[in-house]
């Protein structure tokens, strides 16, 4: 009897001890604990360039621009150099006027904010390949676009800088085209126009031969996606007359194929994105023609 009583008391004691221990574990999970000051320090001071980027690109279009050296954003096997400070804003201002704003007018605010690449990385030097060719721009996953050779952009020399801007716009339209077709695929009929003409040795094809085969640039012979976006980029970086003149450099058979591709691209822009590509083409050309680079850079 006494033994049973002691045993009963012990059992209760153990239960209490167990419950107390259990309770302490809940105390440990108390989420009201003050974790103290964060040890991650973010330097949010902005210089003039940072502030312009924030006000005009980040806040408005959700674009981040990296212009300071950050090798984690670049190819490890290449020697590259950062842009000079005095090149960054002049280039970004002209790019905004000649790329983002015309697209915003024709595609709408939501369109441009949704699909524009979210990270623009600027590099000052050339990106040279072992074979002596140069990479003018690269894009990663529809999110990041890298622009090279910025240190050669000098608004004081309008003609050469406009030619440079045109090359960079080609890159931007090219990469933006990838984002668009990765969002809504272009019609299958585009794939069939020059189905047998693709090659990984596109660099060995001359511009004239490419045109005669129905490809707008030698690079467009790489694959169908590149073909599609090169067509977009060539339309949007030339006036209609200039585009027609490019086509005339190829054979009549090539011209016919290129016109078919142009029609598919124009319909794709109209049907999917409700953008008249010819009106966009005209506006971009007008902006570039009328733009005083020095004046824009100084704004």
């Amino acid at each position: 009897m006494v033994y049973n009583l002691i045993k009963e008391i012990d059992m209760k004691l153990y239960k209490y001890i167990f419950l107390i221990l259990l309770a302490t574990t809940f105390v440990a999970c108390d989420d009201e604990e003050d974790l103290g000051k964060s040890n991650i320090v973010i330097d949010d001071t902005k210089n003039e360039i940072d502030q312009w980027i924030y006000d005009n690109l980040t806040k408005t279009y959700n674009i981040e621009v990296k212009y300071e050296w950050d090798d984690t954003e670049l190819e490890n096997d290449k020697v590259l150099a950062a842009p000079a400070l005095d090149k960054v804003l002049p280039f970004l201002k002209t790019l905004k006027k000649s790329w983002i704003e015309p697209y915003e007018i024709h595609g709408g605010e939501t369109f441009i904010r949704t699909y524009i690449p979210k990270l623009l990385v600027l590099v000052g030097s050339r990106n040279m390949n072992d074979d002596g060719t140069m990479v003018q721009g690269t894009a990663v996953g529809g999110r990041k676009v890298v622009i090279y050779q910025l240190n050669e952009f000098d608004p004081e020399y309008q003609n050469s800088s406009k030619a440079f801007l045109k090359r960079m716009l080609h890159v931007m339209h090219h990469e933006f085209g990838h984002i668009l077709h990765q969002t809504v695929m272009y019609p299958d009929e585009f794939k069939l126009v020059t189905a047998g003409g693709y090659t990984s040795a596109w660099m060995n094809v001359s511009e004239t031969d490419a045109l005669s085969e129905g490809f707008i640039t030698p690079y467009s012979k790489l694959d169908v996606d590149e073909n599609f976006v090169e067509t977009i980029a060539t339309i949007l970086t030339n006036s209609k007359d200039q585009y027609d003149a490019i086509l005339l450099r190829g054979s009549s058979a090539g011209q016919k194929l290129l016109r078919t591709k142009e029609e598919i691209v124009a319909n794709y822009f109209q049907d999917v994105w409700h953008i008249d590509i010819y009106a966009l083409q005209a506006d971009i050309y007008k902006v570039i023609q009328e733009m005083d680079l020095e004046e824009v850079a100084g704004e």
Partner: protein
Amino acid sequence: MKNTILIILACLLAFTACDNEVDELFEQSSQERINDAKIEYKDILTSSENGWVIEVIPGAENKGAYSAYVTFNDDGKVYLSTDFSPYDYEAEIDSSLYEINYTQGMTIAFTTFSQMNYFSNPNNSGGTGLGGDVELLVKEISDDKIVCEGKVNKGSFIFTKADTKSHIDALNEVLKVEEALIGKTYFSDYAFPVLQFEDGTKVSFIYDSYYRAVSTTEYKNTADGVEINKSILRVKFDKTGMSFIDSLEVDGNVVSRLDYNATDNSFKTPSDQSTAEFIISPLPPAEIAGVADAFINSKYGTISSYGKNFKAIMDPFSELYPLFAEIQFSRYYSYSGITFKFKPNDYPYAKLKDNEITKMSESEIKFEFDTYVDKYSNMFKYHIEDRLTTPEGQAIMDVLFSDSGFSLFSEDNVNFTLVKKDDPTIWFMMYMSESGL
């Protein structure tokens, strides 16, 4: 019962095991220590009253050193200027942004393009860079000295406190010394820059301002001919002279420095080293066998550079005939001669006697004049004879077709130096090739 006790003990042990009060090696977390280090490094960089001078030795083996004066500001901007300016003899202030980061260690990075990028710029090196670095891993740091290593190419960057605020003046003093060396090499009377030792040993000494390096060539006469030993030595300049990063050693003579004397425009070794002087010699440092044959057997060439006295003869002709482009040599069947190229595509020439160059010895040649030839003469608007018989033209002809002939020197049988035998202050270099026109 025993099981219950064991379970409770196990629970207690489990809670003991979860104790996170482990002994810390540091009072702060790693992130806190990095944050504190960033603040400390920035304080050190910005607190030097006159800024810093950085002695930079790029990571590539054959690129010499330069000095950079830098002033780090609180706002993340660094003002800098270097004494390495291969395109200009005047130092200029440049600016860049900088950051203090932790990557493979604490790092000072120049994050926008500036003069610090010269050796890491693919544009001036066919895409490969010249061994430069803009991200510097800090190895040692104190209030007075910072030792860093380039993150990619492992160059050396040693910061010491600058002793003057006048960075440009300090750099221009250094540039004057470099300019003096270049001036002696390219604007002296004679053709052959040489380091001459007291014991008579001579070493060919060519300074390359683009690489901040000296290429030296030692010539030794052996039973098999002249033995040629070449080396490239990196150098650095200061306001009193130039130093070799690795000493130059020739036949037991060791030289690590040349002091510059502005009064007599000379470069000599300091008194504690082998006695040597940088001179420009009238004669080649060695006689290379077969050099005359090599020149004669070349089929095409151009005068690629010349000394100041030949320049004084060439310039009036160029002024008189602005379309005159250059002097070439061609040996093409019956058309062998000294060609006077006029822009855009006129090639009249002074034909050589018997279409041949005269060999005077193993290292001496002579051009002998035959006649003037206006090749396809109906295409020319003038006759070459008219132009070369002017006083300006005749002065050139007198040199080229001198009776004394030329001493020849070449290490590679492609670039030949021709020194007029009766006046070694007149010399020029010809780049020759085997291919015909």
